[in-house]
């Protein structure tokens, strides 16, 4: 137990903020913090302080999932801005959809969308979700998410970095007045 406490104490807080210098992507610390503050402001105003995201992989290669996971690591710790990931679409404000929509996932995605209460927003994350990416439209793939459900914001990248994902979410807030 003591070892755990010692490691926690010596690790300290790595969550990135304005004054944070070590380990940081060059020049990103400031940006990340500013982004976070803006996101938080929007969330406070429009979502009463908290926004719930349901992530749906509709056919991705799992690259996007890795970077979405990273949003929860101690560096980004997106939850401090009031953004959290939920286990059910019924608890969600936002669907964060990745991948080209495989035809085998089409109905599942539609049902997830229907299960999400209004008002709801859909963010298509990653090049595949944005435009079909490397996979496009085929016998097995519907291509972009917007071919299946209405999309409110798009975050390009293969995969988008955690910072790009945060920017994209901010973009969504900016759209919705």
């Amino acid at each position, binding site marked *: 137990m003591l070892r755990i406490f010692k*490691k926690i104490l010596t690790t300290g807080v790595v969550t990135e903020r304005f004054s944070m210098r070590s380990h940081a992507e060059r020049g990103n610390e400031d940006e990340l913090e500013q982004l976070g503050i803006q996101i938080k402001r929007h969330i406070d105003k429009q979502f009463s302080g908290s926004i719930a995201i349901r992530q749906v992989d509709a*056919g991705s290669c*799992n690259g*996007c999932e*890795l970077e979405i996971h990273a949003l929860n*690591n101690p560096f980004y710790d997106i939850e401090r801005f009031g953004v959290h990931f939920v286990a059910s679409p019924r608890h969600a404000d936002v669907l964060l959809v990745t991948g080209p929509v495989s035809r*085998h996932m089409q*109905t599942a995605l539609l049902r*997830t969308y229907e299960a999400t209460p209004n008002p709801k927003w859909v963010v298509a994350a990653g090049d595949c979700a944005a435009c079909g990416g490397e996979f496009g439209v085929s016998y097995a793939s519907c291509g972009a998410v917007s071919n299946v459900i209405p999309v409110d914001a798009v975050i390009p990248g293969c995969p988008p970095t955690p910072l790009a994902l945060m920017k994209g979410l901010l973009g969504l807030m900016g759209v919705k007045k």
Partner: protein
Amino acid sequence: MSTSKWTADFLSRLGTEITVAQIDVPSITLWQIESHAWQRFAELAVQQNLRWAAGWAEQVQSLFLINACFEKQGEYVLLRTLLDDSNPELPSQATVYPAANRSERHTQDMFGIKFIGHPDNRRWTRHQAWTENSYPLRKDFPVKGTPVGITAPDIHYPFIKSHGAGTYEIPVGPVHAGIIEPGHFRFQAVGELILNLEERLGYVHKGIEKIAEGRTPESLARLAGRVSGDTTVGHCWAACMAMEQAAGVEIPPRAALIRGILAERERVANHMGDIGAICNDVAFVFAQMQFTRLRELWLRTNATVFGHRLLMDQIVPGGVVCDLSDASCSLIKKEIAELRTELAEVILALDLNTSLEDRLYTAGFLSEQTAAAFGTLGYVGRASGQDFDVRRDAPYAPYDRVMVKVALENQGDIASRVWVRYKEIRTALRLIGEFIDRLVDGDIRTEWQMPAAGSEGLGIVEGWRGEIISHIRFDADNKIARFYPRDPSQLNWAALEKLVLNNIVPDFPVCNKSLNGSYSGNDL
């Protein structure tokens, strides 16, 4: 390991029963047999302890080529038979090798080839995106298909049923509760005890094999890098190796070393992420936070040195795109030294933790026999006594010049899989250092040469999940005719159905994470 050639001995044992035509293909030992002997060959092969490694089909004009890849002592043999397209059927090998089961079902769905005597010939990859009597990988099937507006869910799939007092079913997925890929799991349970688990995958089937056709080598490498995003280096390398074999292109030594560094960096990143996630699944958040932190630092170095956090598109046909400067090399070495210190601290805290001991030891047990029968690969196989690693047993550049120590455990539980991964991280860190030390000045990319029409290659590498086999055949004009990537997940997924038995339902997530199959790499 691969000093003794078993192939000559094996051929002599076949005697007159099966006629083997040895076809001359560069870099591949190719044996061609009559289709009626397909199953008989497997029976003899299993007696001689050959491992069934991969199976796939191709269509060349009016013929179907059925392929199965076997391995023993690091020596690979590609077995092939030709079928006329008028009535494509042959005896199943899945009766002998459980490992071949889903692969044959995939070939059945995609090519309409019938495997006679198959123990379970339900559809596998096909849901409802195409009809029962059409086969996407046949050349007359258009890549666009004939989709309807909304593809129906596959609700009539005949799952195994259980009956009896107190038994009940839990359907899970395809959309899961976490940030994870889609797939369906059907549990039968009594109380909390899992009686049976049936996996239903194929949800992320996006036609990778079909859309590969007609691509250029560069474009195929990009696609291969997206077979499974977490294994982008592994798949890209295997595909490029296959293409280079077909074209007779030799990559420069410096490129091989950089590929090795990329592959080991991918291994370390994934193992760190997974060890953390396994601990998180038993509510030990300390490890999750530490390992996601270490993983993030590692990915940031990737971005600094290679320009991409997950190392996508670094490997290209003929070499690599990103060179390593001296500054980058010293940055990597410094990072490795720091990581070693940190890992030692964190792992010690894990090792001494009684709650982890309680949850991870004996849970998710996979016996050596089951692991062998299903051809289980990588850390899952090695935690259940399967002593195999391509890097050591069938080494390719740059692993042919270094010592690869293979971690092995035989308790077969989740804890064993964690320990194997930890040891693999340590080996990988050492290998990265060695590769950097061996870097010599020179090119990082050889000029591409157009391969002859019909030429083929078989790329086999040790990805972070285990052995990846990638088969490529070229058409005329530098175009791909066939691409088949066999991710280790295609074999490991079946082992999950076995290792969860007699565990409690709440332990399923940690059992699943300890194996961590790729859905995308399986569904293609």
